[in-house]
């Protein structure tokens, strides 16, 4: 049924290795990996739109919707099944994206970035002022069951890690297909020359709209898993510096390979964890210098380092 190409085979292998390592690695590392993989899904949402020429400085909006849907589902609607909660998050996120997308796809580069930033700050403003949602403190996510099964305390984190790896792997394969598909190619074409795409009989606006919705969906999955893993949600998820971080990681990895955002997210998480421990007051500075180095020396991102100059070499 599913004929996997070379990259997809390696994706499956990497996922299996990660799953196996779950039992070897200390649980604080699996926790960091869970968060990194969940964050990588949001970064994929940024990357898809970046490949079409749009830089979203407000992807935190859908990351937050995904997270809060899980939190609110548990606290207010008494839904405690993980799969239903994640689906709820994706549905809410794609619903919001369906409306906002009509407006957002009319804009390009700086204006798209600023409007997306403004919209995510509006959500931030709404949540911060809302008492029932614990305003700036946010609130805890209740324990979840997985199709009825309720694992004991610490195992729950392991189950969430396994679930994240599997879902992230599935999405990675879908993204790989998408990037190499006709639609994926047209995406890059829109970035290069939107008018030509129009004169080839396609509607760039509807393709960007589809991108926007797809990115919103996987960002919500990222938000949902982050909420499940940390057990807490707060308005910080929609703040513009969080969205800035997603753009940072997207650039760190580069947009040319589906695995790049995953590797970049893990590296970012590790660099930040060590930087936080070593220099609690200047970890942001370290990240700032890393970003500058990437832009100056590796415009195509870390990925171009590893994949070598495949185009020129062929």
């Amino acid at each position: 049924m599913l004929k996997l190409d070379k990259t997809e085979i390696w994706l499956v292998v990497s996922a299996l290795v990660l799953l196996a390592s779950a039992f070897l690695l200390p649980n604080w590392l699996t926790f960091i990996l869970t968060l990194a993989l969940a964050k990588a899904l949001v970064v994929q949402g940024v990357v898809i739109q970046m490949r079409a020429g749009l830089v979203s400085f407000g992807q935190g909006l859908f990351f937050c919707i995904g997270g809060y849907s899980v939190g609110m589902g548990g606290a207010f609607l008494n839904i405690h099944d993980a799969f239903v909660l994640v689906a709820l998050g994706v549905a809410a996120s794609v619903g919001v994206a369906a409306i906002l997308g009509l407006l957002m796809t009319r804009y390009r580069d700086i204006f798209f970035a600023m409007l997306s930033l403004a919209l995510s700050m509006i959500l931030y403003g709404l949540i911060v002022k809302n008492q029932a949602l614990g305003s700036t403190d946010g609130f805890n996510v209740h324990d979840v069951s997985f199709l009825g099964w309720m694992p004991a305390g610490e195992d729950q984190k392991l189950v969430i890690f396994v679930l994240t790896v599997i879902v992230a792997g599935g999405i990675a394969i879908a993204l790989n297909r998408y990037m190499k598909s006709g639609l994926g190619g047209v995406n890059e074409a829109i970035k290069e020359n939107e008018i030509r795409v129009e004169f080839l009989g396609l509607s760039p606006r509807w393709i960007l709209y589809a991108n926007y919705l797809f990115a919103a969906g996987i960002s919500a999955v990222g938000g949902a898993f982050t909420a499940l893993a940390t057990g807490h949600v707060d308005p910080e998820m929609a703040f513009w510096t969080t969205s800035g971080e997603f753009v940072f990681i997207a650039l760190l990895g580069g947009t040319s390979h589906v695995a790049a955002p995953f590797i970049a997210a893990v590296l970012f998480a590790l660099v930040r964890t060590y930087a936080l421990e070593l220099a609690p007051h200047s970890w942001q500075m370290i990240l700032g210098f890393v970003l500058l180095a990437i832009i100056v020396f590796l415009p195509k991102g870390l990925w171009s380092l590893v994949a070598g100059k495949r185009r020129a070499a062929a």
Partner: protein
Amino acid sequence: MTTLYAILIDGMIYASWLFMVAAGLTVIYGVMRILNMAHGSFYSIGAYTGASLVGWYFSGAQGAPYWSYALLLGAALVSGVVVGLLIEQGLLQFMYKRDEILMVIVTYALLLILEDATKLIFGVDPYFTFQPYSLLGRSEIGELTFANYDLALIAVAAVIGAACWLTLNRTHTGKVLRAVIQDREIAIAMGVNVKLMFAATFVVGTTLGAIAGALTAPAISVSPGIGVEVIVLAFAVVVVGGLGSIEGAIVGALLVGITRAAAVHLAPQIELFVIYGVMALVLAVRPQGLFGRDLARKI
């Protein structure tokens, strides 16, 4: 009726502060097409240098108090020029060929660096230097009392606005600058030293940000994070007014300022949300802002 006066005057005070903060940002974007995320850090550097200098001056308590205002401006000028030159010459001048959106991310990296740099240099604890603020006393307008320092800020903002507008529209360098804004390549072809223009503009932009910070320092407790706070507000003003236009920044500051003042008085709950609401609304209707030029699609 008094609430209407209160909203108008509070709105004016807040608008003048917003304009001072946004002026540097819109000047730099106008000429250099760089949306400077690090502008908030220049604001906080100006605030920190101003606050620490004035704090030191008053702890000694020898000189006449009114010198502290000169000290504030001096601190802003020095820190603005030094930091501006350092960044422009050290980094930005090599990157003018890069496309706009990448420059936004370069300045985001600068923001991350400068935010931590200020923490390392000035520490984490807040600076309270209220003497210059309370020195000017207060005055009554109707039954309302306002700090003279705030009212003075309106005048200072007006001066800065007029200065920017006049240099841009009524001086020779202004004409040349506008040529660079229209088309960089042709300006170079006509022998304009664009490199110098960019360096000067960037330093002016950072110094304007630092001045805004230094002049605000006496009115607030200067602490980490005020820079990040200010950037998004400055974006709202500049985007509403139209990127790169001084008149736009003035009108944008007034619009956002008065809306926020109304919100604080009438519906404090929606205060934060209302600013971004205005920004999203204007962007939806006129993406290039009230005064921005519509970028034609040439094929």
